[in-house]
């Protein structure tokens, strides 16, 4: 029995936030997500936030992974969290502009400028957001219970390939992350070798794009 299956008019694109400390691999993850999502036929656009440059946007535009026009840059000019939480107007305008320019776009990825463990996204800006930390930051990060670690819809622990080199007990780090998050999703990735990306794409397809 279905109540309402057909949806009239256009449905706004889903907005997906990617936060986390500087260097944890947010852009590397975007570089993995773009081809994986494109291969599944997802119509995509990207917004990057940098402090006072458009470095990450330039990197993505040059990557050849996506039409460069589909990458927008917003400069924070202040602590990156100010434009994803306190006043996300600039990012909302950038997302609205992408939706106007590319009708039919289904998903907008928004990479925040690197921030501290307290950063979170406003629900006015993103529908779903993930927080990316990395193994080399230390296995005590989840234990420190920053709001980003606790409140994100998915916690991604990246650079699993580096665990043996930095003396991190990966299983323990994952277990502690799961414990502080009360059972909400934790994913392990290695963006250097493309490991763990499929699990995140699967989650995006079900929880964000409602494809299955």
């Amino acid at each position, binding site marked *: 029995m279905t*109540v309402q*299956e057909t949806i009239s008019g256009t449905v706004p694109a889903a907005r997906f936030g990617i936060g986390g400390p500087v260097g944890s691999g947010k852009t590397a993850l975007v570089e993995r997500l773009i081809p994986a999502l494109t291969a599944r036929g997802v119509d995509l656009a990207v917004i990057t936030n940098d402090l006072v440059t458009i470095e990450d946007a330039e990197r993505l535009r040059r990557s050849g992974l996506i039409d460069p026009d589909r990458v927008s840059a917003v400069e924070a000019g202040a602590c990156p969290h100010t434009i994803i939480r306190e006043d996300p107007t600039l990012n909302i305008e950038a997302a609205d502009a992408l939706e106007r320019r590319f009708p039919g776009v289904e998903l907008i990825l928004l990479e925040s400028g690197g921030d501290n463990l307290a950063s979170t996204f406003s629900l006015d800006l993103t529908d779903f957001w993930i927080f990316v930390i990395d193994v080399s930051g230390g296995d005590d990060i989840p234990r420190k219970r920053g709001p980003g670690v606790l409140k994100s819809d998915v916690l991604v622990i990246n650079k699993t390939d580096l665990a043996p080199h930095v003396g991190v007990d990966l299983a323990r780090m994952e277990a502690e992350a799961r414990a502080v998050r009360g059972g909400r999703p934790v994913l392990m990735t290695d963006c250097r070798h493309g490991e763990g990306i499929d699990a995140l794409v699967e989650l995006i397809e079900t929880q964000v794009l409602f494809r299955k």
Partner: protein
Amino acid sequence: MLRVHGILGRADDPEVHAALHRLEHRDGIEYLFVPAHEAGRKRFRLTTDRGTDCAVSIDRDQALFDGAVLAMDDSRAIVARFGEQAVWRLIPRDTEAALQLGWHAGNLHWRGRFDGEVLEVLLDGDVDTYRARIANLIDQGLVRDA
């Protein structure tokens, strides 16, 4: 999965209310309980009290509200219900305490509102984790529960 987009109406709107009342007799109303801290979402997937998996989106300029009717036909309606927003009410002892409390609450990015001399903190989690952040103010007697 039931995919719904947009809000059809308000449960307390007289016309909608009459339609819901008819469905009620057929046990046709399903509630989607939205946790208070999730209420700001414009897109989410949640299961109703009767087990229907709902994939919901609303327009960017819409806001979900308690009693929003998300779907309705002859046999069934789906109505959003908000869990009660947990609030922590705090009274500062004097002006100095009020300044300190306001400064901390701002720095901690607490969601709050004012009720005369009371600061109402809108809780997104356990009150004890909030209390721990201003334990020094409470211990010094500068701030107490209202």
